[in-house]
């Protein structure tokens, strides 16, 4: 279709950048906007800008919020000893809607997926570890896991400082020195020295449980495994939400794979 107006064409083009919006839908939206009151269009434009200008991320849990800390992190009635780890802010909202969870959250910003170019360092996993132990890679060192092992030349994902700098913290990571590259500085050093710091702090603000509420797919499984390994040295219990049948769903109509898994993961009555 040809447009006689370049502004309309430009608007259509912008709409097609949004997910699930194809060219036809974009044209429909643009035509609709043409017919709307200017006032109403202004409101849309303002709302669009507001989410970019006003909304920020909570510096503790990284949920999108209008203020930092977010209402959940600043709510003293929420139990700080439990952290529920979710992929995105929308997952947090889903769990909030249950009204059953009274702990705090941590938003990862995705899951590990090499095919999408997302490695552990692209997620807020280090930030999670620091909430459990503030000493964890605290001085802005390269991420404790890979940087030392994988990235002696500092050219990888993290772009951090050369190896060795994080010697004391790296050992706290899930898999101490099992695969140190030849260039790496003494793995034994790294594996020792780390465990001491975590138990020192007063119990106030201590995290006892990390609940992994990631999706039950391949990437979610792997991310859960990664986090559980990373947190293993700490005195914190790491759990994962159950998978199975939806409540209100009829057993008869459940898809067989889900039903099989639910059967596999059955529990005592």
């Amino acid at each position, binding site marked *: 279709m040809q447009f006689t107006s370049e502004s309309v064409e430009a608007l259509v083009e912008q709409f097609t950048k949004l997910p699930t919006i194809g060219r036809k839908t974009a044209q429909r939206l643009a035509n609709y906007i043409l017919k709307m009151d200017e006032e109403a269009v202004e409101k849309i434009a303002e709302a669009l800008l507001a989410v970019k200008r006003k909304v920020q991320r909570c510096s503790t849990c990284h949920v999108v919020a209008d203020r930092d800390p977010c209402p959940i992190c600043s709510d003293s009635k929420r139990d700080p000893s439990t952290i529920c780890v979710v992929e995105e802010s929308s997952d947090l909202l889903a769990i909030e809607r249950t009204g059953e969870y009274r702990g705090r959250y941590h938003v990862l910003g995705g899951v590990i997926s090499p095919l999408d170019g997302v*490695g552990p360092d692209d997620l807020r996993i280090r930030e999670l570890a620091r909430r459990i132990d503030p000493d964890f890679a605290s001085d802005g060192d390269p991420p404790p896991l890979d940087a030392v*092992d*994988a990235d002696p030349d500092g050219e990888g994902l993290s772009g951090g400082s050369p190896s060795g700098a994080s010697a004391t913290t790296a050992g706290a990571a899930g898999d101490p020195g099992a*695969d140190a590259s030849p260039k790496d500085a003494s793995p034994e050093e790294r594996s020792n020295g780390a465990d001491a710091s975590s138990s020192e702090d007063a119990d106030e603000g201590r995290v006892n449980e990390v609940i992994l509420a990631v999706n039950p797919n391949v*990437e979610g499984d792997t991310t859960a*495994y990664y986090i559980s*390994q990373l947190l293993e040295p700490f005195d914190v219990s790491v759990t994962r939400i159950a998978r199975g049948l939806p409540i209100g769903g009829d057993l008869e109509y459940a898809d067989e*794979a889900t039903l*099989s898994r639910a059967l596999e993961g059955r529990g005592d009555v």
Partner: protein
Amino acid sequence: MILRSLRLRSFRAHAETGLEFAPKVNLLYGPNGAGKTNVLEAVHYLCLTKSFTASTDRYAVREGAPYFEVEGTVAGVREAPVDVRIVYVPSEGKKVFVNGAPLDRLAEIVGMLPVVVFSPEDYDLTAGGPSERRRFVNNILSQARPVYMDDLLKYRRARKQRNEVLRQYKGRRESPPSSVLKPWTEEIVAIGSRVIQQRHDFLNTFSDYLTDAYRRIEAVAEKPSIEYDTVADVEDLRAAGATTEAESGPPASREAVAAAFRDALDRKRGSEERRGTTLAGPQRDELVFRLDDLEVRRYGSQGQHRTFGMALKLAQFFYLRDRADTDPLLLLDDAFGKLDRRRTDVFLQLLASDDVGQSLITATQHRSFAEALDFETSAHRAFRVDRVEQKARVRPADGGTWDDRAATDIEAGTPDDRDVVPDS
């Protein structure tokens, strides 16, 4: 299950075709390239959302048409007949509707309408590469156990992710750090050992079905067997498992399989890093078929390959029937073309018997079928498929009215009609 009727719209050579099937044998005969196999493919789309040939969905759309649609009415699956429809639009993909309601996932239909295909390509089951045999096992298990297909798809995804890690670090000429690779290793070990375990347990049960099936078509007292080669010796898996029963199939323990898989990956680690890909796991499984001590792949005669291939498919039929509690639909695509007279007769008798359910057969001629089966009864039906004005035309041809033109047409052959698949 009984496929009562089928409608094809813009599917390959068919612009618009409707068929009403008989409950037992349905013969589609006519010259090459007329669109007989297309009917079987359409049925296969309904059952498994894809063709049994290697071709892609895009080529299934009739040239110049925007989409294809196949609809069938199936009895004997639920209490009332079920209407299943699959629509494919190239830009939007496939959608399956059951009684008008769209399925959330295509995979949900798999197993509901069990199907077994016989074709000349079955020769490759025994003579071809290992992937043919894995495909065979995957096909049966996916239809029999939805959870298997779920595992298989997840395994492929996880392996792809792990390969990507290996590939990326290979590009940087570094070893992937354990913290990055190990989570993926554990994921493919967890899912892959479920796949292996299910294959192992399946093959234990399946070998009895194979022996039975082989006896039905071959009087000679050779005994067929299947050996499963996976990440570790099956014997080892058994030995490490909880049971120590002899031969007849103690299940492999999941832990034993996982440990063996993990070991295999450890051993291959160096090569994996050099080649940037995963080198152990169920994607490298192999099945070794034997007749007594003879390894069919290497030493089988042509006849033995054909018989073994048929026996495998027949065993698949009986296995699926027992799992699904309904007769799987049999699709025989030119399956008799290379069979000798004796085997053909044995097989046609089986198709007419009460031991199997409904079958759809394609052939270039009707003679040997007309002699063996009575198409005057309501149990069987024959269809004459022709190509008229670039379109497939299907007409019921009842016993008395065999179109004699068929025979001459066929002898002459009509090779130029074969290019029916759009090139787009």
